[in-house]
């Protein structure tokens, strides 16, 4: 069953990731993040389409009240993330254009699952004030209660939905 590993040992990657997070704490006094980049982008996109409506959304005011909302630490960090992952994928020869899905999943089902799953993630990240990066990883490393309750709840939600959507990925 085991193919030749093209990835690093998860423990080595985990140590690298941990040291990156530690550098963020030491240099910036904050952890890593990701989901807010999507939220800022959604706010800016909404404003581009309908400025009046975007202005009426109280939650987006924290972004749109700024002079240039996209000049944001997490947005720049995500740009770096993209380049770093691209470098990793190209150097290791694992870069390949695909539309990735489970072996028994059709293309339309995959499109729907990506969109709907993404929407749930976008919504849930706002409610929880962050995602696996900003709350789970960063909060968890601070031994903050937020990080650990989020991780536990996420695993419960994940196991229940994997039991329901049994053939989506394997």
């Amino acid at each position, binding site marked *: 069953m085991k193919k030749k590993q093209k990835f690093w040992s998860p423990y080595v990657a*985990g140590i690298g990731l*941990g040291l990156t997070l530690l550098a963020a704490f030491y240099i910036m006094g904050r952890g890593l993040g*990701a989901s807010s980049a999507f939220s800022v982008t959604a706010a800016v996109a909404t404003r581009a389409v309908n400025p009046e409506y975007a202005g009426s959304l109280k939650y987006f005011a924290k972004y749109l009240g700024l002079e240039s909302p996209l000049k944001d630490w997490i947005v720049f960090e995500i740009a770096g*993330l*993209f380049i770093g992952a691209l470098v990793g994928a190209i150097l290791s020869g694992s870069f390949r254009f695909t539309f990735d899905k489970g072996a028994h999943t059709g293309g339309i089902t995959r499109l729907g699952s990506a969109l709907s799953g*993404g929407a749930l*993630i976008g919504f849930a990240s706002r409610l929880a004030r962050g995602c696996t990066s900003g709350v789970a990883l960063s909060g968890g490393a601070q031994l903050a209660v937020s990080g650990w309750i989020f991780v536990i709840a996420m695993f419960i939600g994940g196991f229940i939905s994997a039991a329901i959507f049994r053939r989506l990925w394997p």
Partner: protein
Amino acid sequence: MNSPLYQYGAFGEGTSLLVAVVIGLFFGFFLERGGLGNPHKLTGVFYLTDFTVPKVMFTAMLVAAAGVYLLSDLGLMDIGKMWIVPTFFWPQIVGGFVFGIGYVLSGYCPGTSVAALASGRLDALFAMAGMGAGSLLFAVLYPWLEGFYLSSNMDELTIPKVMGLNHWTVLAALCVIAVVMFALMERYERRE
């Protein structure tokens, strides 16, 4: 004690954005190299077929936690100036649960979807579009959600504070739990 460097004015906002890109580079590189740009590996833990996610995640958390508390105890870093992820108990429980469902459906989380796109996975674009749409949905429904969103505020609560224990005791306990968990996962994966 002169760190966190940014809080102590070592550099300005413009430089901080450059720092963001560099930190992001490493973040993305290690995610991709750990296999976390791959939705099969990302969802594997929930199907008990691949335990990469908990292995990477808990290793990273414990390494960073040990580093933070070590720097703090050695007087090299002012932990009081660090922004601690605040706890809003029920919103984070419900948010985490819904997040877990979205994670299995989409195969990604926000950071890993970007790493997946960078490795050529075009399905990640749809997950990313969904994340933007979900954020907008939250903003649209915010007037009705605000009460719940702001409820059960516990501020900068940490596990050592809740349990009244020294942070090294908590960290040691978490390390023991992680090592036992990793050993069980390795044994289970070998049997597969």
